């Protein structure tokens, strides 16, 4: 039921959200998360790498686990790979549920896992060149909340 995509080109998050919402007549609440390249700190570009044999299958497995854990009416996960500019969308998660707390929890859970347990590698370009970004300790704390 979930719509899970690895996008190699820029996507339009507003159009994706509008299309997703239009399909959710049985949901009382829809939570969306949009992650985008921030225009700050001198970041000129951001690159996300994926590993073809594992990245999309891993995202599909994450969607399966998310849908098993919360009663959802719909779930959308779109994640970019490739080189992005400030303002470009990186990731979009939308979760629709009869009750709002399920939608919030599912979107939050999916994002935490996309951040630090999905097969992506990120580097950013500033005036001093490209630099690989390792996960932050907070990312691991965020994900540990779901293991309680």
């Amino acid at each position, binding site marked *: 039921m979930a719509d899970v995509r690895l996008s190699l080109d820029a996507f339009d998050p507003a159009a994706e959200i509008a299309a997703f919402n239009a399909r959710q007549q049985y949901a009382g609440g829809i939570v969306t998360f949009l992650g985008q390249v921030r225009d700050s700190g001198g970041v000129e570009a951001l690159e996300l790498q994926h590993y073809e044999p*594992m990245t999309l299958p891993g995202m599909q497995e994450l969607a399966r686990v998310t849908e098993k854990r919360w009663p959802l009416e719909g779930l959308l996960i779109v994640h970019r790979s490739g080189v992005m500019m400030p303002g470009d969308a990186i990731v979009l998660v939308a979760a629709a549920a009869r009750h709002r707390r399920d939608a919030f929890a599912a979107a939050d859970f999916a994002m935490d896992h996309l951040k630090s347990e999905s097969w992506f590698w990120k580097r950013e370009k500033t005036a001093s060149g490209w630099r690989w970004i390792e996960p932050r300790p907070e990312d691991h704390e965020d994900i540990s909340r779901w293991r309680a």
Partner: protein
Amino acid sequence: MGRLEDAAGAAELPVEPGPVEQVLARLDPALAVQLLGEKVRMALNGRLLTDVGGIVLAQGDELAFLPPVSGG
């Protein structure tokens, strides 16, 4: 993947088939040390390995070295 590509100078390296230990021994030692780093996970043909010991690469196999991920 990720920073290990910079260390290897390429996204993919063709290697001779054989036991993984031998394959690694034929690489540049500085690269081999990075590939065997504590936080690096390995996948054979898209499946995560829990233990690389005893794995023998056949023709066409792809062994991936996966540093800590960072998505979103």
